[in-house]
């Protein structure tokens, strides 16, 4: 289905002076306009298939690492995909993956706030965490040898990532698991690149300290 010309074509002046109200409310917005009022068209679906579906794996992986389990991750991804579908006309240019992951991330945190209000570290607390980290640097005080790091097994690695504070975890997952660049991570997480760098370094530092511990 094409929407070309939808704005310029006028209904032929027929026996009705004007179309009935239920027909007049229709306006197909151009790209970038508020898509919330838009009707769904086949183009939306095509675009969704091109923009969103290729990143379903990344979307799921991110949701999985944020929520911590499969079932919740799938709920989040499905919800996020519906949001992305409704907003698909708002996607213009840039990294489709970053756009999708941004929606997934926001959806995941909304979901967590609703379903696990007590368990999650509030984002406000994060600055405190980061500041404390920056001051004491205790987690990074222990600096195991690289050879020790290489011995960690999958279960231990997974547990160590899961134990990271959320902002560190998401930065690390986006970079080291999903391979996003700093700029994309900044876009997805809504913080400056400098903050991305600092979170990433601290997340890695904690991870290295945890998995490098011999008795852990």
């Amino acid at each position, binding site marked *: 289905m094409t929407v070309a010309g939808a704005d310029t074509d006028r*209904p032929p002046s027929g026996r009705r002076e004007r179309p009935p109200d239920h027909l007049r409310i229709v306006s197909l917005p151009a790209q970038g306009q508020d898509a919330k009022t838009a009707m769904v068209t086949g183009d939306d679906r095509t675009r969704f*298939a091109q923009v969103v579906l290729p990143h379903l794996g990344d979307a799921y992986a991110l949701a999985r690492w944020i929520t911590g389990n499969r079932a919740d991750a799938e709920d989040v991804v499905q919800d996020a*995909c519906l949001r992305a579908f409704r907003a698909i006309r708002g996607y213009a240019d840039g990294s489709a993956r970053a756009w999708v992951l941004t929606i997934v991330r926001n959806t995941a945190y909304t979901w967590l706030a609703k379903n696990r209000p007590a368990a999650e570290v509030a984002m406000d607390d994060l600055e405190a965490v980061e500041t404390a980290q920056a001051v004491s640097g205790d987690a990074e005080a222990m600096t195991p040898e690289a050879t020790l790091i290489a011995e960690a097994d999958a279960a231990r690695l997974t547990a160590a990532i899961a134990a990271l504070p959320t902002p560190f975890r998401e930065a690390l997952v986006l970079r080291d698991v999903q391979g996003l660049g700093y700029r994309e991570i900044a876009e997805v997480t809504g913080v400056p690149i400098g903050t991305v760098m600092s979170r990433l370094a601290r997340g890695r530092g904690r991870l290295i300290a945890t998995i490098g511990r011999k008795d852990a």
Partner: protein
Amino acid sequence: MTRSMSPEDPKLLVHAYLDGELDPANALAVEQRIAADPALAAECRRVEALQQLLRERLPRETPSPALRARIEAAVGMRRPRAQPSWRALAASIAVTAVLASGTTFLALAPQPTDEVREAVVAAHIRALMAPQPIDVASSDRHTVKPWFNGRIPQAPRVIDLAKADFPLVGGRLDVVGRKAVPTLVYRHRQHLISLVELPAAEGTSSGPSLRTAGGYNVLRWSADGVAYWAVSDVGAADLRQFADLFRTAQPDQ
């Protein structure tokens, strides 16, 4: 990355270097610092070891095929679970009305029936989407039939089958092969049936033939120069019954 970064922590630069985020000049500078500073060199080795570990040993998280199917269904790319609703129908009417407005109906060039089938099924699925609350409905064929006037020159055959438990619920314009075509919508219990009427060669007449596409039953027949495509998730027997009723009904006008 060409911007100068606050170098309060040279470790950050090591991470950025390993991540390939530094421009050549900065990368060279960091390489030199690493070479000169054993602590930075150790950090570099640790991060490299960690990255290798994450690459090689971390289990990949992949979504289940069921998730993808659910999502595709939810956005109407597959058979959705949603109940058909008036809103969906109304939205579809509104969208297609705009798309078709001002266009001239032309006889369709013959096209492969597979493409037509895909188009009518897609149009039906669109009708099941419910993005907008719009108030439009008519079970009166004397309302539905004139509705097409002025939108397309073709006057669709509209039959009221309410007595046979196939009440007419409205009409819409669909686009098949880039042409606006009339579609009638009937309800059978909780299911909607889309009946698309396409122009066919004069004198064409053929009995119903049933196919499935995307989980929908699609029944096609033609009569008097019109090819009818009925799409629904009702059972094949119900759809055949609908087609038989429609074909044999006497237009009383």
